[in-house]
């Protein structure tokens, strides 16, 4: 059977009284993270449309994660795929 193509992680932060969750997906080439508003109780769900930041690191050229490419036009299609 086909093996999984991504690993998922998350980390919460408090910002001005709001809870923000950083959801991160790692595939063979990229790590992509979106920091979004998060409702704790009762739903424990993110609000994907309220974004506090995004990070896209290209591990083929930048294994040290030194350049966030999230807003670079040439990475737009990759970002859309990872979203």
């Amino acid at each position, binding site marked *: 059977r086909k093996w999984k193509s991504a690993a998922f992680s998350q*980390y*919460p932060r408090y910002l001005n009284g709001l809870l923000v969750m950083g959801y991160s997906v790692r595939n063979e080439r990229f790590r992509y993270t979106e920091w979004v508003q998060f409702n704790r109780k009762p739903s424990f769900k993110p609000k994907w449309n309220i974004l506090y930041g995004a*990070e896209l690191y290209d591990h083929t050229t930048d294994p040290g*994660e030194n350049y966030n490419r999230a807003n670079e036009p040439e990475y737009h299609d990759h970002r859309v795929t990872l979203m």
Partner: protein
Amino acid sequence: KSRKNILFLVADDMRPDLGVYRSGDPVIHTPNLDALAGKSLLLKKAYVQQAYCSPSRTSLLTGRRPDTTHVYDLIHYFRKSGGNFTTIPQYFKDRGYNSIGMGKIFHPGQKASDFDDPISWSRPYFHPDENEAYRGRSHSWRAVSKDEYNDKPLPDIQLANKAIEVLRQVGPAAKRGEQPFFLAVGFYKPHLPFVFPEEFLSLYPPENINLPKNGYIPAHMPPIAWSKYWELLIYKDISELQVSGQPNTSLPRDVVRSLRRAYYSSISYIDNEVGRVLQELKMLGLEDNTIVSFLGDHGWQLGEHGEWCKHTNFEDALHAPMMIHVPGITDRGIITERLTEFVDLFPTLVESAGFTPLSLCSEVNSTQTILCREGTSLMPLMKNPT
């Protein structure tokens, strides 16, 4: 047919700077873990679900992601916040294993785990004596002389001694096929403060310790990605430096080098204690019938990006060591670079011990399902690692 035993080894805050990963700079001296990796499935790209002790441990021990356990901090207890989920040690206890825990497996304390989740274990839990001299906040690291630790044994030495004692107790019954054991040993280091026997310092001469290659924050990093590494700033020797923890304001270079040297020494110290336990397993003739897993509960940032500790979504915080030895299957050593997650461990141990594979949890809501998996068994990678 008698079941295989399970030896479940965990290190606290250990990133994959092991000799076998070749990721450290310098290469880290870990002969015992390297030897274990040489007869295991070594998962070179294993990622935790959250880079923080209790959320990560709760996730891997229940096989569920933090959005199911609802444990995102060191306070909430999954049985109260997420659901009454079966844990790995509880699963084996419920199937006749002698389930024994010691050290840091669940995050300790009443709020976080109701004192080590008693339902998971067959007998009272063991904690070593955490001598105050070794846990104070005056120094972020300390090399302890032999005289001192002979007088006041370090907690992880006590832990390895206890694990050896328990193996000698439960080993004969397991060997006769009467009752298999699940023995979980949770080492406390290399967690801060980096306290270790001084002889390990000599493995890492100061001139061999390099600064991280990426000492600054990523270009265009959103501020919310940053953590002020409060876990390090609480130590007096660090707070005296008047550092703020803000991006691009990292520590003086000599301090960075000293911390990296102490962290590497702590890894080698834990490797030594793991080696003593594995040696006893071999001496007792249990090696061929015991599954051995080893993992670090998450990664750690040693000044990369000018960042420290965990508490981020950077690669260094999320990437952690994991290896699984299954006698008769992984004996020649299998390395995989396929992406894996720590929620994969529970279904792997269940399958490798010969039990019926766990069912996949419902994608909608699994809080009422006591036993299911959100990860995937790693057994297929033992047959085809590519």
